[in-house]
């Protein structure tokens, strides 16, 4: 993780540096290009001017030279000795004087003409070819109006070499002849040109117009001058400005100047030239300077951007480390860098806010995870932890040699009775208030510090007794039972609370915390099943509970293997004592366990929805038996219990109808019993089902009336025909005048609503009689008959009638 983070850091840093340097290079390149373009433009603009200057410098140089040579020649011609020699008439003397005096001023070729311009003597050969030139020069010198010191010079070819010729008269003191002096045009012209005008000079000559140009002098390399000499320099170009010539792959701007144009005696062409490429090229020292600048700025930028990147990335590393700390669960250490004003500071502040927020949320989550929000008690998770630590503490204590006490931890589990009904009837808010009250009461029972009350489920509470043994657990359980004796009063409602309590102890019942809790839970379920109040865990319970685990599979098997038995409990007319009906009940004849009591599988079937299968089974079985009983002459109504799930089954009326058709039984043969609470789960759907059942012709009965909270107004809307008073009232009406009053008023009420009243739980004759006096319609109970196998019902009926001989009644019933 760190390695990855640092790698990313390096890469970000590298990217930053690369970006900086890239931008710098782009700027440098742009600058370089701009410089280059500017230089090029400048050079192109400057070239003609420079060439023009060069040309003028050339012209000026030649003129100056001519002036200088003229002056020199003039002085020489005035030399007395020279003039004396000339007049010696001795040719050798004259020639040697010409050579000697010519050498004085650097004239390589000297010729003497008489006043008629006839060549008298000369140094070297070929001087006769210069006759036209001499004539021109003499003419210019003698031209009227010419100043005495005016320059007259011409450039010409002599023996293929370019010379600058000047001609001066020899005066003694009048003109007695002419002397022509030829000065070779040499490298000095080229070096002077370069020194003065920084241009290249090339001198081309040709003897005849048809000849090729010969390079006589040049400041340029041979390759380039060759290129220039091959150019077709025509006379027309004389005086025209610049010409572009490509020589040896390089472009030159050339300014030609014709020094002599003579088709027969030779032409001399001077070319001033400049390399266009060299002019547009960035000078070498500037290139070096730019390169050095680039390198230095790259270094500066590199170091600068590296430092900047470092400054930017270091806090990022810190943040990354802080994020890792957060990830590892350390919310206590502040992020740091929050004081910074920049973006990093903002990020740090955001991280800090996140840290605080996550920390708070973590606490909240912990609270949610370990605390029950309604009661504020620890929840199941915390309870479990507490049990674990209690056991660990006990083990430690036991390990200590000084301790003699037997280690023990006790857990109590508590499930409120009828809490669901309270929630259903009085609402969840009320239910929550009730839970809080219960929590308070439970807490009050714990006087020892370190013990814990927790809410571990909907209406389940748990109590941990550290170092508590079975005896202590029993004591606490008793205290709780006592505390629950007093009804709770909440918002003008008085609620009678009861609870099933299960207890288990470590190490007797369990080897660890989970087992301890689950065993206490088992004991609690068992206590509730048996309505036994408080129950200490017993291995037998565990066996029973293990049995329930495979119950569903076994129940399915029970249906398919015909292990279920239909039992009937008679309903008798209190008026005539006749058997008017029977409640159809299911019993399970388990192949191994024998007869399984309904309490062991009916609640489970209701929980799992298997009850619908059972209901159909009971209905069909009842229909079958009704046919048989009918055949034997018993005209009775069979009652079948419907559960909540049955009522919510939209197809139930259809299924019943199909079964009626199948077994050819009228709907009137059945009474369908529904508990109040079954209706209350979803009153609308329940009502719809009931209406359809009623329309089919079934008699409907409210079972266990008095235990629920149904209002009479609501009852009135139900399509019921019968009320069954809960056996709890009936059983105690003999001893409790209040219950008797309830029974009486219920009977009256039901009659007033036009309902038949059935009393359940009639266990003795006294009750029978009381009910008769109260005009109750029918009775059901052990006093008359326990639930019996359906097969035996017919015989029992005969026996019952025989024992009580209500012949008239029987016949009346039969006749009915």
């Amino acid at each position, binding site marked *: 993780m760190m390695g990855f983070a640092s790698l990313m850091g390096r890469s970000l840093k590298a990217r930053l540096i690369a970006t900086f340097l890239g931008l710098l290079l782009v700027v440098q390149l742009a600058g370089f290009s701009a410089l280059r373009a500017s230089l090029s433009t400048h050079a192109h603009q400057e070239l003609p001017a420079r060439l023009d200057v060069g040309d003028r410098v050339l012209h000026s140089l030649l003129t100056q030279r001519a002036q200088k040579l003229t002056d020199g020649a003039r002085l020489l011609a005035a030399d007395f000795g020279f003039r004396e020699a000339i*007049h010696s008439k001795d040719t050798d003397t004259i020639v040697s004087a010409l050579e000697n005096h010519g050498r004085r001023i650097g004239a390589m070729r000297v010729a003497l003409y008489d*006043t008629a311009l006839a060549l008298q003597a000369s140094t070297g050969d070929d001087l006769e070819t210069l006759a036209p030139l001499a004539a021109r020069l003499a003419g210019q010198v003698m031209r009227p109006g010419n100043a005495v010191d005016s320059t007259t010079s011409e450039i010409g070819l002599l023996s293929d070499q370019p010379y600058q010729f000047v001609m001066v008269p020899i005066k*003694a*003191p009048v003109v*007695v002849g002419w002397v022509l002096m030829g000065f070779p045009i040499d490298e000095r012209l080229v070096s002077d040109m370069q020194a003065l005008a920084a241009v290249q000079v090339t001198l081309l000559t040709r003897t005849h117009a048809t000849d090729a140009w010969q390079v006589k002098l040049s400041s340029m390399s041979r390759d380039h001058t060759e290129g220039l000499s091959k150019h077709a320099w025509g006379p027309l170009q004389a005086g025209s400005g610049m010409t572009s010539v490509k020589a040896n792959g390089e472009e030159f701007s050339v300014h030609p100047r014709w020094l002599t144009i003579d088709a027969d005696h030779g032409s001399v062409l001077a070319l001033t030239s400049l390399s266009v490429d060299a002019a547009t090229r960035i000078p070498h020292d500037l290139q070096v300077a730019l390169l050095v600048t680039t390198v230095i700025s790259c270094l500066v930028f590199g170091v600068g951007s590296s430092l900047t990147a470092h400054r930017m990335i270091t806090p990022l590393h810190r943040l990354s480390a802080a994020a890792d700390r957060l990830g590892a669960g350390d919310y206590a250490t502040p992020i740091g860098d929050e004081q910074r004003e920049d973006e990093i500071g903002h990020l740090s502040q955001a991280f800090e806010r996140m840290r605080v927020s996550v920390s708070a949320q973590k606490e909240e989550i912990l609270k949610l995870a370990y605390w029950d929000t309604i009661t504020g008690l620890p929840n199941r998770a915390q309870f479990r932890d507490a049990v674990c630590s209690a056991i660990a503490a006990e083990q430690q204590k036991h390990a200590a040699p000084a301790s003699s006490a037997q280690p023990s931890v006790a857990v109590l589990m508590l499930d409120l009775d009828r809490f669901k009904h309270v929630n259903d009837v009085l609402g969840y808010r009320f239910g929550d208030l009730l839970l809080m009250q219960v929590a308070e009461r439970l807490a009050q029972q714990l006087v020892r510090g370190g013990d814990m009350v927790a809410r571990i489920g909907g209406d389940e509470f748990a109590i941990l007794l550290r170092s508590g043994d079975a005896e202590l657990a029993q004591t606490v359980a008793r205290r709780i039972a006592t505390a629950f004796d007093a009804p709770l009063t909440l918002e003008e409602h008085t609620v009678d609370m009861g609870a099933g309590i299960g207890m288990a102890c470590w190490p007797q019942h369990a080897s660890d915390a989970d087992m301890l809790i689950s065993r206490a839970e088992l004991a609690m379920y068992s206590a509730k099943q048996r309505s036994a109040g408080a129950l200490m865990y017993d291995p037998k319970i565990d066996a029973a509970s293990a049995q329930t685990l495979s119950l569903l599979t076994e129940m399915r098997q029970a249906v398919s293997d015909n292990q279920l038995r239909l039992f009937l409990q008679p309903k008798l007319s209190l008026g005539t004592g006749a058997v008017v009906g029977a409640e159809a009940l299911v019993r399970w004849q388990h192949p191994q366990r024998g007869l399984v009591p309904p309490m062991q599988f009916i609640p489970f079937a209701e929980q799992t929805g298997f009850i619908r299968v059972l209901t159909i089974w009971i209905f069909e079985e009842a229909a079958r038996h009704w046919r048989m009983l009918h055949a034997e002459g018993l005209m009775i109504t069979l009652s079948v219990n419907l559960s909540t799930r049955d009522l919510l089954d939209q197809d139930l009326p259809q299924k019943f109808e199909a079964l009626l058709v199948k077994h050819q039984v009228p709907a009137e043969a059945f009474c369908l019993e529904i508990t109040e609470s079954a209706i209350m789960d979803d009153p609308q759907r329940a009502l719809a089902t009931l209406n359809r059942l009623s329309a089919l012709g079934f008699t409907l009965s409210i079972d266990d009336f008095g235990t629920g909270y149904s209002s009479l107004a609501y009852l009135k809307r139900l399509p019921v025909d019968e009320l069954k008073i809960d056996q709890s009232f009936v059983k105690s009406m003999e001893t409790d005048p209040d219950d008797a009053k309830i029974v009486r008023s219920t009977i009256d009420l039901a009659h007033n609503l036009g309902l038949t009243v059935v009393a359940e739980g009639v266990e003795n004759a006294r009750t029978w009689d009381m009910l008769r006096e109260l005009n109750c319609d029918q009775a059901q109970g052990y006093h008359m008959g326990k639930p019996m196998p359906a097969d035996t019902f017919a015989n029992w009926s005969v026996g019952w009638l025989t024992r009580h001989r209500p012949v008239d009644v029987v016949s009346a019933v039969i006749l009915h």
Partner: protein
Amino acid sequence: MLPLLLCGSAQAGSVAVNVTDAAGKPLPLAVVSIEPVTAKLAVQPSAPTQVAQSKRQFVPRVSVVTVGTSVAFPNQDTVRHHVYSFSPTKNFELKLYSGVPAQPVLFDKPGIAVLGCNIHDQMAAWIVVVDTPFYALTSAEGHARVNAVTPGSYRVKVWHPGLPGNSDGVSQALTVGAADIEQAMRLDVGVNPLGPQP
């Protein structure tokens, strides 16, 4: 010789020559000499004469002497002069001197001697040496008159420094009788070298 001259003088007429330049203007200081077509006339050297140097100029600029005449070159300036002549008529040289040189220069050949000063280029003078007694210089009006010319066939020759190059003048045939002759001569002289010197 003398009788002829005398005779001549007795019967002779004068020859007047009007010399004009190329533009037709009177040309002063032109040398007019009249030479017989045949035979030579005996000439006497002229009286010794002089060409002085004054204010860095030769004075006079143009002189005419007969063969055998000695000419002195007195220097009247404070600076020295170096008078020379490369002319075949008389090649001489008077190296830097002041005052009057010891020896005058004898002009013993006919021809034109051009005199210069080696240290003052602008100085020039011409001495025309003739071997005829009939000669004259034109006046400022371009007139030259030669008196007492013995009748006979002559060539009249006019020369002027302004003539180009090696020209030794323009000559014309002339027959002299008893009467005076007036002759007009035109010389192709454009620029007069004897004009005002700079």
